[in-house]
């Protein structure tokens, strides 16, 4: 709420200076979001008249002005371009207090200046042209103190008021809060009550008591002087409203920001049929609201209607045709209490918010309606003594009552962890409700938010300050459980970081273009109903989407190596149901290693991505990389492997399709990636710690022996095929491929494979003869199955 310091001070005369107000308000849960100093705050600045202007002898851009202050004349150096003889200007005299400090006597380029001609900003005045000095009204008398011309210093601040503090959405109610909780003096607004004659020309009907709790209405007639008083006009303008200089409109706003009760004034001429009905709108019924919009209504919208048509959207905005016009002289003042959720519903459906709906939604003081109506009447009567006021109705089908809360000081202490005495707690209760006199508590009419002992605990803490809650504990020690998914994430990060990969974090929202760029079908993607923009319209179907964007971003900034990974969620639709899965993706592009003085640069390729997957999954049960029959659209068909673990297909690894790279505006073609289901990976971390630890395998105390074998094989046999029959022969610890060669000295369509075998036995050290026999056996097997031959060197 935009708040005016001086307005607040009207009700809270011993309010501290503005600079000290912030901590007091925040101790009560209000925060000042922004503040602006307005008005004139300087001493020693008077109106001067420029009599003569001469050029400064030592500076091209400076002038020397002779300025008359009426009783004396000053010689002043000035740099502004817009000065002219005969102007009235603000002159700060030597010793003047300005916002930036005290003005001292100064010699400017050798000439003594007896003051300073000021611009608006030098005087701390906002809303003026600051390109030169401030030119004042020519009718002003030289020597007049500027304090007499401009407004007094004041502050406008934006006070953040959370929904639970909505009862402070006015200057008076905020002052009341400061008085009750912090002991400042409170001056109640003087609201006249009028002896009212009944008026029978209008009848009020409330269709449903659950929509409208109270409808208070009076009629004021014969209003001739409609000009809003200057003080009211200024206040409304300062808090950011747009006063219309029509008292019938402005007084209603003024009362709302003074007291907190939204009201509405109808022009009596345009209320047809002598009745007002608070009812639900009919479907397709229409109203033109005050803002000039034609709106179609529906049966969920609460309206005020005369006998023929809706004249206002209840609590939200008045109708145009029944509103106050320049020639309006007779009005009906509505001061009602509508059901908060009814107002909220109307406001939501119409997409229309107002200061009024804001207050009704949050709940208002249910005893304020008559006062607010009188307040408006009073503001009108003040300038229209001959106006006549009559009473229409105080239709009150439902009176909210405040719950009785059992006063248990023990309970409050146990919630807060404090040790307030019963008396101390009752003192706090009295701040909430000044008429509290001990015993059970019931809230005042403006605090319908208080329903339970927890609410009273909060009030007690607000009253004594939250610092009364000490940092101390009696909590028992608590058992702590590991989370398998989190353990998986930690393990993944540790391993991928050690490979030189950096972790990325991307938005989960992507565009239709990006989904299509991945060659995926958007019909299987989850779309937002209300996206911020088309760039963020869908939930990502793959983590790679963001990494590809990161790749482009980094390449465009000169990166020669991009190695990134990300853990996150991916989304898809399966039979119209949202599927949310944990996913990890890795992207590798460019150099694995820069040139180094011992060896050249190394570029990432398919085997790096394969190696990274194998490293990551090395301890997983049933880990395997299998040729891919159904690769995701964004991989190259023949450069893609399935990742298997725990008997499940959990992801894919390979080279990113050229089409996808082109769609992401990536010119480079060698980009490798893998993505897998993190939940399957996390299975390795499920269960108790001891049960997932790999048991130590005994090693032989006899020497191990290695033997190499180099064969020439037809290229049609994959290494996987060749390895299969030999990897499980007895006493073989492992077999590794240490060289692959094709080309010169070999028949076409063949390649040589150099394998290294490691043999080990628990019983003995193998002799050369035994080892040779084993190698021969292997060779014979391979020869028989694949027709390999020995490579002659």
């Amino acid at each position, binding site marked *: 709420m935009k708040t005016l310091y001086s307005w607040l001070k009207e009700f809270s005369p011993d309010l501290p200076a503005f600079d000290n107000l912030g901590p007091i308000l925040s*101790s009560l849960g209000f925060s000042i979001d922004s503040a602006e100093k307005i008005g004139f705050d300087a001493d020693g600045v008077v109106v001067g008249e420029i009599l003569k202007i001469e050029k400064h002898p030592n500076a091209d851009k400076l002038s020397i002005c002779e300025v008359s202050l009426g009783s004396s004349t000053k010689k002043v150096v000035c740099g502004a371009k817009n000065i002219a003889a005969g102007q009235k200007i603000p002159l700060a005299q030597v010793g003047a207090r300005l916002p930036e400090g005290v003005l001292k006597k100064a010699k400017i380029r050798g000439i003594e200046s007896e003051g300073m001609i000021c611009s608006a900003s030098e005087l701390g005045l906002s809303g003026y042209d600051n390109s030169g000095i401030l030119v004042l009204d020519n009718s002003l008398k030289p020597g007049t103190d500027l304090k007499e011309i401009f407004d007094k210093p004041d502050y406008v601040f934006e006070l953040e008021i*959370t*929904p639970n503090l*909505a009862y402070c959405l006015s200057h008076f109610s905020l002052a009341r809060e400061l008085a009750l909780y912090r002991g400042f003096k409170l001056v109640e607004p003087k609201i006249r009550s009028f002896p009212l004659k009944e008026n029978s020309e209008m009848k009020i009907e409330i269709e449903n008591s659950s929509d409208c709790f109270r409808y208070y209405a009076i009629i004021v007639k014969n209003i001739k002087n409609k000009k809003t008083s200057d003080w009211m006009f200024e206040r409304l303008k300062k808090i950011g409203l747009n006063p219309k200089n029509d008292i019938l409109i402005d007084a209603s706003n003024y009362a709302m920001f003074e007291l907190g009760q939204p009201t509405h004034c109808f022009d009596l001429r345009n209320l047809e049929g002598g009745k007002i009905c608070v009812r639900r709108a009919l479907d397709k019924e229409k109203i033109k609201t005050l803002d000039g919009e034609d709106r179609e209504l529906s049966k969920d919208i609460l309206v005020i209607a005369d006998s023929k048509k809706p004249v206002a959207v209840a609590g939200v905005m008045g109708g145009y045709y029944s509103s106050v016009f320049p020639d309006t002289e007779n009005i009906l003042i509505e001061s009602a209490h509508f059901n908060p959720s009814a107002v*909220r519903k109307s406001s939501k459906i119409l997409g229309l918010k107002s200061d009024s709906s804001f207050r009704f*939604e*949050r709940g208002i003081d249910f005893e304020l309606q008559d006062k607010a109506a009188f307040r408006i009447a009073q503001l009108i009567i003040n300038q229209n003594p001959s106006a006549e006021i009559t009473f229409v109705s105080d239709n009150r089908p439902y009176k909210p009552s405040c719950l009785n809360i059992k006063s248990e000081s023990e309970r409050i202490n*146990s919630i*807060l*962890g404090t040790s307030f005495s019963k008396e101390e707690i009752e003192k706090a209760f009295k701040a909430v409700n000044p008429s509290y006199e001990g015993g059970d508590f019931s809230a005042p009419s403006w605090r319908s938010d208080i329903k*339970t002992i*927890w*609410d009273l*605990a*909060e009030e007690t*803490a*607000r009253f004594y300050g*939250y610092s009364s*809650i000490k*940092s*101390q*504990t*009696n*909590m*028992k020690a*608590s*058992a*702590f*459980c*590991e*989370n398998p*998914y*989190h353990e998986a994430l*930690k393990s993944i*990060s540790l391993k*991928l*970081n*050690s490979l*030189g*990969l*950096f*972790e990325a*974090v*991307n*938005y*989960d*929202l992507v565009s239709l273009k990006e989904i299509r760029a991945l060659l995926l079908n958007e019909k299987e993607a989850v779309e*937002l*109903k*209300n*996206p*911020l923009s088309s760039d963020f319209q869908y939930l990502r179907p793959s983590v790679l989407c963001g990494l590809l964007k990161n790749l482009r*971003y*980094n390449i465009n*900034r000169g990166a020669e190596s*991009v190695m990134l990974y990300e853990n996150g*969620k991916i989304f898809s639709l399966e039979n119209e149901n*949202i599927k*949310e899965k944990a996913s990890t993706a890795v992207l590798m592009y460019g150099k694995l*290693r820069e040139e180094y003085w011992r060896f050249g640069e190394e570029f990432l390729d398919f085997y790096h991505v394969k190696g990274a997957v194998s490293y990551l999954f090395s301890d997983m049960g049933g880990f395997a990389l299998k040729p891919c029959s159904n690769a995701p659209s964004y991989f190259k068909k023949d450069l893609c492997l399935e990742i298997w673990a725990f008997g499940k297909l959990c992801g894919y690894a390979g080279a990113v399709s050229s089409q996808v790279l082109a769609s992401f505006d990536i010119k480079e073609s060698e980009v490798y990636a893998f993505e897998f289901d993190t939940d399957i990976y996390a299975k390795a971390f499920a269960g108790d710690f001891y049960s997932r630890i790999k048991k130590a395998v005994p090693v032989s105390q006899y020497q191990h022996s290695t033997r190499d074998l180099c064969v020439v094989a037809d290229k049609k046999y994959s290494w996987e095929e060749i390895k299969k029959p030999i990897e499980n022969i007895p006493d073989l610890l492992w077999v590794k491929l240490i060289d692959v060669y094709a080309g010169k000295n070999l028949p076409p369509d063949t390649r040589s494979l150099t394998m290294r075998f490691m043999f080990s036995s628990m019983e003995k050290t193998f002799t050369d003869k035994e080892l040779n026999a084993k190698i021969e056996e292997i060779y014979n097997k391979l020869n028989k199955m694949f027709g390999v031959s020995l490579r002659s060197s």
Partner: protein
Amino acid sequence: MNKQEWLEKLSALRNEFEKAAAEKKSSQDIERDFLSKKGGLALLLRDLSAFSIEEKKELGSLGNDFKKKVAEYCAENSSNPVSDKKSDLDITLCGHPYPKGHSHPIIITMEKIISSMNKLGFSLEYGPLAERDYYNFEALNFPPDHPARDMQDTFYLNQKDEKGINYLLRTHTSPVQIRVMQSKKPPLRVISAGKVFRSEAVDASHSFVFHQLEGFCADKNISMSDLKWTLESFIKDMFGSAAKIRFSPSYFPFVEPGAGVEVSCVFCSSSKGKCPVCKGTGWLEMLGAGMIHPEVFKACGYNPDEISGFAFGAGIERFAMLLYGISDMRQLYENDLRILKNL
């Protein structure tokens, strides 16, 4: 061999040893000749096995005395006979470029927070990002028409849940509270962390996707003092033992009383004049907290007259930006390697 012969052999060994010592034989050679498994003294001592117990004692002691003497001599005179050749390596050339990668600053910050809370007995739980209105709002005491819903601009999805209400992207991590409390019984001490979504325009300090941390405790006799102690312990772990916290009233529908939590600015001391981090106030707004609202407990089937608890939450980006000195939140989502590599 009789006793006499044995003693003669020992005496011969002694002479040999003295001779070797006089010739300044290397201690390695002496060790090999006398003390090793096949050395003279070892063999002689092994011969004792044929003697009677008394003789074993007597001769053994003589033999061991000598063994000790030789061992001492070797230890005293041992010198490393292998001398290093002068190296011609330029040891100032840079070392092998092992790869170096690391986690994202948001995740590093999140992990620190999680481990910090783990130490206080809080276990980690997760929840879905595509959430039901019930978990995100209703069960957290945001009734359907409550204005507090306006405090969190929500993204909705096209799909509807069992109640016919559109799914949404969770606006906070608090739905995890409901999910955990509905599936487990107190005492509970739980922390959750992850992405949340708000339909807000992106600028230096706002993002429509950001990370949140959530913690709660549900047990008997839990008070707001316990909350303060917990948060103070956590903050000291994050920002050092000199860090302090203070509470002020604040509002979140799922807690009552509610508190805003400020942390004393630990960056002030390092700058002269007005601290740019806290703008000279000395305090940083870091968390929201409070006592779990009785309506929330009721929604989870707990009796609020028996079980009490606290909850707290914070934006992780705010922590990360402070810790890493990043002033624009968007930078955290650009994944610019020039920045990531230097963190």
